[in-house]
Protein backbone atom coordinates (compact mmCIF):
# COMPACT_ATOMS: atom_id res chain seq x y z
CA UNK A 1 0.00 0.00 0.00
CA UNK A 2 1.28 3.42 -0.94
CA UNK A 3 1.95 6.11 1.68
CA UNK A 4 0.07 9.39 1.69
CA UNK A 5 2.33 12.31 0.74
CA UNK A 6 -0.24 15.10 1.02
CA UNK A 7 -3.42 15.23 3.05
CA UNK A 8 -5.96 18.03 3.40
CA UNK A 9 -8.74 17.54 5.93
CA UNK A 10 -11.71 19.87 6.32
CA UNK A 11 -9.80 22.91 5.14
CA UNK A 12 -11.85 26.10 5.01
CA UNK A 13 -10.64 29.61 4.29
CA UNK A 14 -12.13 33.08 4.37
CA UNK A 15 -10.95 36.36 2.88
CA UNK A 16 -12.42 38.83 5.32
CA UNK A 17 -15.95 37.42 5.63
CA UNK A 18 -16.12 35.74 2.22
CA UNK A 19 -15.81 31.96 2.36
CA UNK A 20 -13.57 30.86 -0.53
CA UNK A 21 -12.81 27.29 0.55
CA UNK A 22 -15.44 25.17 2.25
CA UNK A 23 -14.45 21.95 4.01
CA UNK A 24 -11.87 20.78 1.45
CA UNK A 25 -10.55 17.25 1.92
CA UNK A 26 -8.41 15.13 -0.41
CA UNK A 27 -5.17 13.22 -0.25
CA UNK A 28 -2.36 12.31 -2.63
CA UNK A 29 -0.48 9.04 -2.56
CA UNK A 30 3.21 8.64 -3.20
CA UNK A 31 4.24 8.39 -6.85
CA UNK A 32 0.90 9.59 -8.21
CA UNK A 33 -0.11 12.35 -10.61
CA UNK A 34 -2.97 14.22 -9.01
CA UNK A 35 -4.92 16.92 -10.80
CA UNK A 36 -6.89 19.66 -9.04
CA UNK A 37 -9.26 20.88 -11.74
CA UNK A 38 -11.48 23.93 -11.60
CA UNK A 39 -12.42 27.16 -13.32
CA UNK A 40 -10.81 30.48 -12.46
CA UNK A 41 -11.91 31.64 -9.03
CA UNK A 42 -12.72 28.12 -7.86
CA UNK A 43 -10.23 28.32 -5.00
CA UNK A 44 -7.30 26.44 -6.56
CA UNK A 45 -4.73 29.17 -5.96
CA UNK A 46 -5.92 29.62 -2.38
CA UNK A 47 -5.26 25.92 -1.77
CA UNK A 48 -1.83 26.33 -3.41
CA UNK A 49 -1.06 29.32 -1.17
CA UNK A 50 -2.08 27.37 1.92
CA UNK A 51 0.12 24.44 0.89
CA UNK A 52 3.11 26.71 0.34
CA UNK A 53 2.41 28.72 3.51
CA UNK A 54 1.92 32.00 1.70
CA UNK A 55 -1.41 32.02 3.53
CA UNK A 56 -1.81 30.74 7.04
CA UNK A 57 -4.24 27.93 7.71
CA UNK A 58 -7.47 29.13 9.32
CA UNK A 59 -9.25 25.82 9.88
CA UNK A 60 -8.75 22.15 9.09
CA UNK A 61 -5.43 20.42 8.73
CA UNK A 62 -2.76 20.01 6.07
CA UNK A 63 -0.09 17.35 6.29
CA UNK A 64 2.81 17.04 3.91
CA UNK A 65 4.89 13.91 4.16
CA UNK A 66 3.44 13.31 7.62
CA UNK A 67 4.22 16.78 8.98
CA UNK A 68 1.59 19.41 9.67
CA UNK A 69 1.99 22.63 7.68
CA UNK A 70 2.53 24.50 10.96
CA UNK A 71 5.77 22.52 11.23
CA UNK A 72 6.89 24.08 7.95
CA UNK A 73 10.62 23.60 8.40
CA UNK A 74 9.92 19.87 7.97
CA UNK A 75 6.74 19.93 5.88
CA UNK A 76 8.16 22.15 3.12
CA UNK A 77 11.59 20.51 3.09
CA UNK A 78 10.80 17.89 0.47
CA UNK A 79 8.54 19.81 -1.87
CA UNK A 80 9.22 21.61 -5.12
CA UNK A 81 7.07 24.54 -6.22
CA UNK A 82 6.20 26.06 -9.59
CA UNK A 83 4.13 29.23 -9.40
CA UNK A 84 1.61 30.41 -11.93
CA UNK A 85 3.45 33.69 -12.47
CA UNK A 86 7.11 33.82 -13.60
CA UNK A 87 9.43 33.90 -10.61
CA UNK A 88 12.87 33.85 -12.23
CA UNK A 89 15.12 36.88 -11.94
CA UNK A 90 15.31 38.07 -15.54
CA UNK A 91 18.61 39.92 -15.09
CA UNK A 92 20.42 36.84 -13.84
CA UNK A 93 21.57 33.80 -15.81
CA UNK A 94 19.92 30.41 -15.53
CA UNK A 95 22.85 29.17 -13.44
CA UNK A 96 22.64 32.14 -11.05
CA UNK A 97 18.89 31.63 -10.62
CA UNK A 98 19.43 27.95 -9.87
CA UNK A 99 22.22 28.73 -7.40
CA UNK A 100 19.98 31.16 -5.57
CA UNK A 101 17.10 28.71 -5.26
CA UNK A 102 19.48 25.93 -4.22
CA UNK A 103 20.80 28.20 -1.48
CA UNK A 104 17.25 28.74 -0.23
CA UNK A 105 17.12 24.96 0.13
CA UNK A 106 20.35 25.05 2.12
CA UNK A 107 22.57 23.67 -0.66
CA UNK A 108 25.99 24.75 -1.86
CA UNK A 109 26.30 25.82 -5.51
CA UNK A 110 28.02 22.54 -6.34
CA UNK A 111 25.34 20.44 -4.63
CA UNK A 112 22.62 22.42 -6.42
CA UNK A 113 23.87 21.58 -9.89
CA UNK A 114 24.67 17.99 -8.94
CA UNK A 115 21.09 17.42 -7.74
CA UNK A 116 19.60 18.41 -11.11
CA UNK A 117 22.26 17.07 -13.45
CA UNK A 118 19.85 14.65 -15.18
CA UNK A 119 17.00 17.18 -15.36
CA UNK A 120 19.22 19.76 -17.06
CA UNK A 121 20.19 17.18 -19.67
CA UNK A 122 16.68 15.80 -20.17
CA UNK A 123 15.18 19.25 -20.65
CA UNK A 124 18.03 20.47 -22.89
CA UNK A 125 19.12 23.23 -20.58
CA UNK A 126 22.83 22.50 -20.20
CA UNK A 127 23.74 24.90 -22.98
CA UNK A 128 21.49 27.60 -21.57
CA UNK A 129 23.07 27.67 -18.13
CA UNK A 130 24.98 30.88 -18.75
CA UNK A 131 22.23 32.59 -20.73
CA UNK A 132 20.36 35.46 -19.13
CA UNK A 133 16.78 34.46 -18.39
CA UNK A 134 15.42 37.50 -20.25
CA UNK A 135 16.89 36.04 -23.47
CA UNK A 136 14.97 32.77 -23.10
CA UNK A 137 11.55 32.18 -24.64
CA UNK A 138 8.51 31.37 -22.49
CA UNK A 139 8.85 27.62 -22.94
CA UNK A 140 12.49 27.57 -21.86
CA UNK A 141 11.77 29.81 -18.88
CA UNK A 142 9.10 27.39 -17.74
CA UNK A 143 11.51 24.48 -18.15
CA UNK A 144 14.05 26.32 -15.99
CA UNK A 145 11.36 26.76 -13.34
CA UNK A 146 10.51 23.04 -13.53
CA UNK A 147 14.19 22.11 -13.18
CA UNK A 148 14.56 24.61 -10.35
CA UNK A 149 11.65 23.03 -8.50
CA UNK A 150 13.39 19.65 -8.75
CA UNK A 151 16.53 20.86 -6.95
CA UNK A 152 17.38 18.48 -4.09
CA UNK A 153 15.01 15.82 -5.48
CA UNK A 154 11.72 16.70 -3.73
CA UNK A 155 9.14 14.00 -2.97
CA UNK A 156 6.19 16.19 -3.95
CA UNK A 157 5.91 18.78 -6.70
CA UNK A 158 3.23 21.49 -6.53
CA UNK A 159 2.45 23.24 -9.81
CA UNK A 160 -0.09 26.05 -10.08
CA UNK A 161 -1.27 26.52 -13.69
CA UNK A 162 2.28 25.79 -14.80
CA UNK A 163 1.50 25.66 -18.52
CA UNK A 164 -0.56 28.83 -18.86
CA UNK A 165 0.65 30.93 -21.78
CA UNK A 166 2.68 28.15 -23.40
CA UNK A 167 2.12 26.67 -26.85
CA UNK A 168 0.62 23.19 -27.14
CA UNK A 169 3.95 21.43 -27.72
CA UNK A 170 5.64 23.07 -24.72
CA UNK A 171 2.63 22.27 -22.53
CA UNK A 172 2.60 18.59 -23.35
CA UNK A 173 6.42 18.28 -23.30
CA UNK A 174 6.35 19.45 -19.67
CA UNK A 175 3.38 17.23 -18.79
CA UNK A 176 4.95 14.16 -20.42
CA UNK A 177 8.23 14.77 -18.65
CA UNK A 178 6.59 14.96 -15.23
CA UNK A 179 4.27 12.00 -15.88
CA UNK A 180 7.34 9.98 -16.81
CA UNK A 181 9.02 10.86 -13.51
CA UNK A 182 5.85 9.87 -11.65
CA UNK A 183 5.70 6.54 -13.50
CA UNK A 184 9.28 5.84 -12.49
CA UNK A 185 8.21 6.42 -8.88
CA UNK A 186 10.59 9.36 -8.43
CA UNK A 187 8.04 11.95 -7.41
CA UNK A 188 4.38 12.80 -6.70
CA UNK A 189 2.75 15.70 -8.51
CA UNK A 190 -0.12 18.01 -7.60
CA UNK A 191 -1.06 19.56 -10.94
CA UNK A 192 -3.41 22.52 -10.52
CA UNK A 193 -5.14 23.56 -13.73
CA UNK A 194 -8.27 24.81 -15.43
CA UNK A 195 -7.34 23.11 -18.73
CA UNK A 196 -9.39 19.97 -19.27
CA UNK A 197 -7.16 18.60 -22.05
CA UNK A 198 -4.32 18.20 -19.56
CA UNK A 199 -6.18 15.49 -17.65
CA UNK A 200 -5.71 11.82 -18.57
CA UNK A 201 -8.32 9.22 -17.69
CA UNK A 202 -5.95 7.40 -15.34
CA UNK A 203 -5.06 10.56 -13.38
CA UNK A 204 -6.27 10.97 -9.82
CA UNK A 205 -8.50 14.00 -9.85
CA UNK A 206 -10.41 16.40 -7.64
CA UNK A 207 -12.92 18.75 -9.23
CA UNK A 208 -13.23 22.01 -7.32
CA UNK A 209 -15.95 24.57 -7.91
CA UNK A 210 -16.81 27.70 -5.92
CA UNK A 211 -14.59 26.56 -3.05
CA UNK A 212 -16.01 23.04 -2.76
CA UNK A 213 -14.76 19.66 -3.92
CA UNK A 214 -17.49 18.15 -6.11
CA UNK A 215 -15.84 14.87 -7.02
CA UNK A 216 -12.69 12.85 -6.35
CA UNK A 217 -11.31 9.64 -7.88
CA UNK A 218 -9.62 8.83 -11.15
CA UNK A 219 -10.95 10.82 -14.10
CA UNK A 220 -12.27 7.57 -15.56
CA UNK A 221 -14.16 6.70 -12.39
CA UNK A 222 -15.72 10.15 -12.08
CA UNK A 223 -16.91 10.13 -15.70
CA UNK A 224 -18.35 6.61 -15.33
CA UNK A 225 -20.03 7.40 -12.01
CA UNK A 226 -21.95 10.31 -13.49
CA UNK A 227 -22.60 8.50 -16.78
CA UNK A 228 -21.22 11.26 -18.98
CA UNK A 229 -19.29 11.11 -22.26
CA UNK A 230 -16.13 12.87 -21.16
CA UNK A 231 -14.65 15.09 -18.46
CA UNK A 232 -16.01 18.32 -19.91
CA UNK A 233 -19.54 16.92 -19.94
CA UNK A 234 -19.07 15.61 -16.40
CA UNK A 235 -17.93 19.03 -15.27
CA UNK A 236 -20.97 20.66 -16.89
CA UNK A 237 -23.21 18.08 -15.24
CA UNK A 238 -21.71 18.67 -11.80
CA UNK A 239 -21.46 22.43 -11.89
CA UNK A 240 -24.19 23.46 -14.33
CA UNK A 241 -21.54 25.67 -15.91
CA UNK A 242 -19.88 25.44 -19.28
CA UNK A 243 -16.07 25.44 -18.95
CA UNK A 244 -15.71 26.53 -22.58
CA UNK A 245 -17.84 29.63 -22.06
Amino acid at each position, binding site marked *: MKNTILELENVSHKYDKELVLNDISFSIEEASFFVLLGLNGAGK*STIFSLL*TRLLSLQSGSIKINGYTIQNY*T*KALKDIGIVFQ*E*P*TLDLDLTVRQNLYYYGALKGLSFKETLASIKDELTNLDLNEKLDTKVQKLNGGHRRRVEIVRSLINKPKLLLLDEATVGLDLKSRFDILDYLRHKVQKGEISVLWITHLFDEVQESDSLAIIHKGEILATGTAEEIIAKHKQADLTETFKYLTMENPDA
Partner: protein
Amino acid sequence: MRKYFYCAKGIIYKELLRFLKEKSRFFSALVRPLLWLFIFSAGFTSALGLAIIPPYESYITYETYIVPGLVGMILLFNGMQSSLTMIIDKEMGSMKILLTSYINRNFLLFCKMFATAIVSTIQAITFLVVAYLYGVELSIIGILLTIPVILFTSIILNAFALFISSVIKQLENFAAIMNFVIFPMFFLSSALYPLWKIKDSSIFLYTVCSFNPFTYIVESIRFTLYLKFDPFNFYIIFFYFIVALSLAFMGYKAKKVLKKS
Protein backbone atom coordinates in the same frame (compact mmCIF):
# COMPACT_ATOMS: atom_id res chain seq x y z
CA MET B 1 23.96 25.16 10.65
CA ARG B 2 25.34 24.25 7.25
CA LYS B 3 22.04 24.94 5.48
CA TYR B 4 21.79 28.36 7.17
CA PHE B 5 25.26 29.23 5.99
CA TYR B 6 24.52 28.33 2.36
CA CYS B 7 21.16 30.08 2.54
CA ALA B 8 22.73 33.32 3.80
CA LYS B 9 25.49 33.02 1.20
CA GLY B 10 22.91 32.61 -1.60
CA ILE B 11 20.87 35.65 -0.56
CA ILE B 12 23.98 37.84 -0.25
CA TYR B 13 25.26 36.46 -3.57
CA LYS B 14 22.05 37.49 -5.33
CA GLU B 15 22.00 40.96 -3.78
CA LEU B 16 25.62 41.57 -4.79
CA LEU B 17 24.95 40.30 -8.32
CA ARG B 18 22.06 42.75 -8.60
CA PHE B 19 24.25 45.53 -7.26
CA LEU B 20 27.01 44.80 -9.77
CA LYS B 21 24.52 44.69 -12.63
CA GLU B 22 22.87 47.96 -11.67
CA LYS B 23 25.85 50.31 -11.85
CA SER B 24 23.60 53.29 -12.45
CA ARG B 25 21.97 52.61 -9.07
CA PHE B 26 25.39 52.80 -7.43
CA PHE B 27 26.32 56.08 -9.09
CA SER B 28 22.96 57.72 -8.45
CA ALA B 29 23.19 56.68 -4.82
CA LEU B 30 26.58 58.35 -4.70
CA VAL B 31 25.69 61.48 -6.66
CA ARG B 32 22.82 62.46 -4.34
CA PRO B 33 24.92 62.95 -1.17
CA LEU B 34 27.82 64.36 -3.15
CA LEU B 35 25.57 67.11 -4.52
CA TRP B 36 24.55 67.93 -0.96
CA LEU B 37 28.17 67.95 0.12
CA PHE B 38 29.57 70.01 -2.75
CA ILE B 39 26.69 72.41 -3.40
CA PHE B 40 24.23 72.52 -0.51
CA SER B 41 26.83 72.64 2.23
CA ALA B 42 28.89 75.23 0.33
CA GLY B 43 25.88 77.56 0.38
CA PHE B 44 25.11 76.90 4.02
CA THR B 45 28.61 77.20 5.40
CA SER B 46 28.42 80.94 5.78
CA ALA B 47 24.77 81.00 6.84
CA LEU B 48 25.00 78.46 9.64
CA GLY B 49 27.24 78.96 12.65
CA LEU B 50 28.07 75.81 14.56
CA ALA B 51 29.02 75.73 18.21
CA ILE B 52 31.43 73.18 19.59
CA ILE B 53 29.25 70.15 20.28
CA PRO B 54 30.17 66.50 21.00
CA PRO B 55 31.85 64.58 19.45
CA TYR B 56 33.74 67.56 17.99
CA GLU B 57 36.43 69.18 20.13
CA SER B 58 36.82 72.36 18.10
CA TYR B 59 34.90 74.46 15.59
CA ILE B 60 34.15 72.52 12.43
CA THR B 61 33.03 73.42 8.95
CA TYR B 62 29.48 72.70 7.85
CA GLU B 63 30.85 70.16 5.33
CA THR B 64 32.34 68.22 8.22
CA TYR B 65 29.10 68.41 10.19
CA ILE B 66 26.90 67.24 7.34
CA VAL B 67 28.93 64.17 6.29
CA PRO B 68 27.49 61.68 8.87
CA GLY B 69 23.98 62.83 7.92
CA LEU B 70 24.74 62.21 4.26
CA VAL B 71 26.01 58.72 5.10
CA GLY B 72 22.67 58.21 6.84
CA MET B 73 20.96 59.51 3.71
CA ILE B 74 22.66 56.82 1.63
CA LEU B 75 21.52 54.13 4.07
CA LEU B 76 17.99 55.51 4.21
CA PHE B 77 17.55 55.79 0.44
CA ASN B 78 19.17 52.42 -0.19
CA GLY B 79 16.93 50.80 2.41
CA MET B 80 13.89 52.30 0.73
CA GLN B 81 15.22 51.29 -2.68
CA SER B 82 15.40 47.75 -1.40
CA SER B 83 11.85 48.14 -0.14
CA LEU B 84 10.92 49.15 -3.68
CA THR B 85 12.49 46.00 -5.11
CA MET B 86 10.59 43.97 -2.52
CA ILE B 87 7.33 45.45 -3.80
CA ILE B 88 8.36 44.62 -7.37
CA ASP B 89 9.36 41.14 -6.19
CA LYS B 90 5.96 40.74 -4.58
CA GLU B 91 4.22 41.88 -7.75
CA MET B 92 6.45 39.73 -9.98
CA GLY B 93 6.20 36.72 -7.71
CA SER B 94 9.91 36.22 -7.04
CA MET B 95 9.39 37.20 -3.39
CA LYS B 96 7.30 34.05 -3.07
CA ILE B 97 10.39 31.99 -3.83
CA LEU B 98 12.04 33.40 -0.73
CA LEU B 99 9.01 32.98 1.46
CA THR B 100 8.23 29.38 0.52
CA SER B 101 11.64 28.09 1.58
CA TYR B 102 11.53 25.56 4.41
CA ILE B 103 14.24 27.53 6.20
CA ASN B 104 13.03 29.77 9.03
CA ARG B 105 11.33 32.78 7.49
CA ASN B 106 12.71 35.28 9.98
CA PHE B 107 16.21 34.07 9.22
CA LEU B 108 15.56 34.54 5.48
CA LEU B 109 14.28 38.06 6.06
CA PHE B 110 17.25 38.91 8.25
CA CYS B 111 19.61 37.66 5.51
CA LYS B 112 17.79 39.87 3.01
CA MET B 113 18.25 42.91 5.29
CA PHE B 114 21.88 42.02 5.93
CA ALA B 115 22.58 41.59 2.20
CA THR B 116 21.09 45.02 1.48
CA ALA B 117 23.13 46.44 4.37
CA ILE B 118 26.33 45.16 2.75
CA VAL B 119 25.46 47.01 -0.46
CA SER B 120 24.60 50.17 1.51
CA THR B 121 27.89 49.93 3.40
CA ILE B 122 29.89 49.70 0.17
CA GLN B 123 28.14 52.85 -1.09
CA ALA B 124 28.55 54.69 2.21
CA ILE B 125 32.26 53.90 2.51
CA THR B 126 32.83 54.97 -1.09
CA PHE B 127 31.14 58.28 -0.24
CA LEU B 128 33.30 58.73 2.88
CA VAL B 129 36.45 58.10 0.87
CA VAL B 130 35.38 60.71 -1.71
CA ALA B 131 34.59 63.17 1.12
CA TYR B 132 38.00 62.46 2.66
CA LEU B 133 39.72 63.12 -0.66
CA TYR B 134 37.63 66.30 -1.04
CA GLY B 135 39.18 67.56 2.16
CA VAL B 136 36.53 66.92 4.79
CA GLU B 137 38.06 66.45 8.22
CA LEU B 138 37.97 62.64 8.53
CA SER B 139 40.45 59.97 9.54
CA ILE B 140 41.08 56.63 7.90
CA ILE B 141 40.76 54.90 11.29
CA GLY B 142 37.44 56.65 11.86
CA ILE B 143 36.18 55.48 8.47
CA LEU B 144 37.27 51.90 9.16
CA LEU B 145 35.69 51.88 12.62
CA THR B 146 32.43 53.19 11.15
CA ILE B 147 31.99 50.12 8.90
CA PRO B 148 30.32 47.89 11.54
CA VAL B 149 28.21 50.83 12.75
CA ILE B 150 27.02 51.55 9.22
CA LEU B 151 26.25 47.86 8.69
CA PHE B 152 24.29 47.65 11.95
CA THR B 153 22.33 50.86 11.50
CA SER B 154 21.64 50.00 7.89
CA ILE B 155 19.93 46.79 9.04
CA ILE B 156 17.61 48.94 11.21
CA LEU B 157 16.60 51.06 8.22
CA ASN B 158 16.25 48.01 5.99
CA ALA B 159 14.00 46.39 8.57
CA PHE B 160 11.76 49.47 8.64
CA ALA B 161 11.76 49.43 4.83
CA LEU B 162 10.86 45.74 4.80
CA PHE B 163 7.96 46.42 7.14
CA ILE B 164 6.78 49.25 4.87
CA SER B 165 6.99 46.96 1.83
CA SER B 166 4.80 44.44 3.66
CA VAL B 167 2.00 46.96 4.10
CA ILE B 168 2.18 48.49 0.62
CA LYS B 169 0.12 46.60 -1.90
CA GLN B 170 1.13 48.43 -5.04
CA LEU B 171 4.19 50.11 -6.43
CA GLU B 172 2.32 53.37 -7.06
CA ASN B 173 2.13 53.94 -3.32
CA PHE B 174 5.89 54.25 -3.11
CA ALA B 175 5.75 57.95 -3.99
CA ALA B 176 3.69 58.47 -0.85
CA ILE B 177 6.38 56.70 1.14
CA MET B 178 8.92 59.16 -0.23
CA ASN B 179 6.85 62.09 0.97
CA PHE B 180 5.57 60.69 4.24
CA VAL B 181 8.48 58.56 5.43
CA ILE B 182 11.83 59.29 3.81
CA PHE B 183 11.78 63.08 3.72
CA PRO B 184 10.31 63.61 7.20
CA MET B 185 12.71 61.03 8.62
CA PHE B 186 15.67 62.79 7.03
CA PHE B 187 14.72 66.40 7.73
CA LEU B 188 13.42 65.75 11.26
CA SER B 189 16.79 64.54 12.44
CA SER B 190 20.23 65.85 13.26
CA ALA B 191 21.46 65.06 9.72
CA LEU B 192 21.50 68.66 8.46
CA TYR B 193 21.58 70.74 11.64
CA PRO B 194 22.33 70.05 15.31
CA LEU B 195 19.35 69.40 17.55
CA TRP B 196 20.08 72.45 19.71
CA LYS B 197 19.53 74.64 16.62
CA ILE B 198 16.13 73.00 16.11
CA LYS B 199 15.34 73.40 19.81
CA ASP B 200 16.01 77.12 19.52
CA SER B 201 13.43 77.35 16.76
CA SER B 202 10.73 74.94 17.92
CA ILE B 203 10.43 72.76 21.00
CA PHE B 204 7.81 70.67 19.21
CA LEU B 205 10.11 69.89 16.27
CA TYR B 206 12.92 69.17 18.70
CA THR B 207 10.71 66.63 20.52
CA VAL B 208 9.78 64.96 17.24
CA CYS B 209 13.47 64.78 16.23
CA SER B 210 14.29 63.24 19.61
CA PHE B 211 12.02 60.28 18.86
CA ASN B 212 13.25 59.82 15.30
CA PRO B 213 15.44 56.71 15.05
CA PHE B 214 17.30 58.32 12.16
CA THR B 215 18.65 60.97 14.56
CA TYR B 216 20.36 58.28 16.63
CA ILE B 217 21.62 56.47 13.56
CA VAL B 218 23.26 59.67 12.30
CA GLU B 219 24.69 60.44 15.74
CA SER B 220 26.13 56.94 16.15
CA ILE B 221 27.87 57.32 12.79
CA ARG B 222 29.07 60.82 13.76
CA PHE B 223 30.50 59.71 17.10
CA THR B 224 32.26 56.67 15.62
CA LEU B 225 33.75 58.70 12.77
CA TYR B 226 35.43 60.88 15.39
CA LEU B 227 36.48 57.90 17.54
CA LYS B 228 33.97 58.55 20.32
CA PHE B 229 31.41 56.25 21.89
CA ASP B 230 28.09 57.41 23.35
CA PRO B 231 26.50 54.58 25.40
CA PHE B 232 23.10 56.32 25.51
CA ASN B 233 23.05 56.49 21.73
CA PHE B 234 24.04 52.83 21.51
CA TYR B 235 21.18 51.71 23.80
CA ILE B 236 18.70 53.74 21.78
CA ILE B 237 19.77 52.29 18.41
CA PHE B 238 19.79 48.80 19.91
CA PHE B 239 16.22 49.41 21.06
CA TYR B 240 15.22 50.55 17.55
CA PHE B 241 17.02 47.49 16.11
CA ILE B 242 14.73 45.20 18.12
CA VAL B 243 11.62 47.24 17.25
CA ALA B 244 12.45 47.35 13.52
CA LEU B 245 13.21 43.63 13.29
CA SER B 246 10.01 42.76 15.14
CA LEU B 247 7.98 44.93 12.76
CA ALA B 248 9.64 43.39 9.69
CA PHE B 249 9.07 39.85 10.95
CA MET B 250 5.45 40.58 11.82
CA GLY B 251 4.89 42.19 8.42
CA TYR B 252 5.86 38.99 6.63
CA LYS B 253 4.03 36.49 8.80
CA ALA B 254 2.22 33.96 6.61
CA LYS B 255 -1.25 35.46 6.83
CA LYS B 256 -0.04 38.87 5.71
CA VAL B 257 1.95 37.83 2.66
CA LEU B 258 -1.01 37.46 0.36
CA LYS B 259 -4.13 39.53 0.15
CA LYS B 260 -7.14 38.56 -1.83
CA SER B 261 -6.30 39.06 -5.49
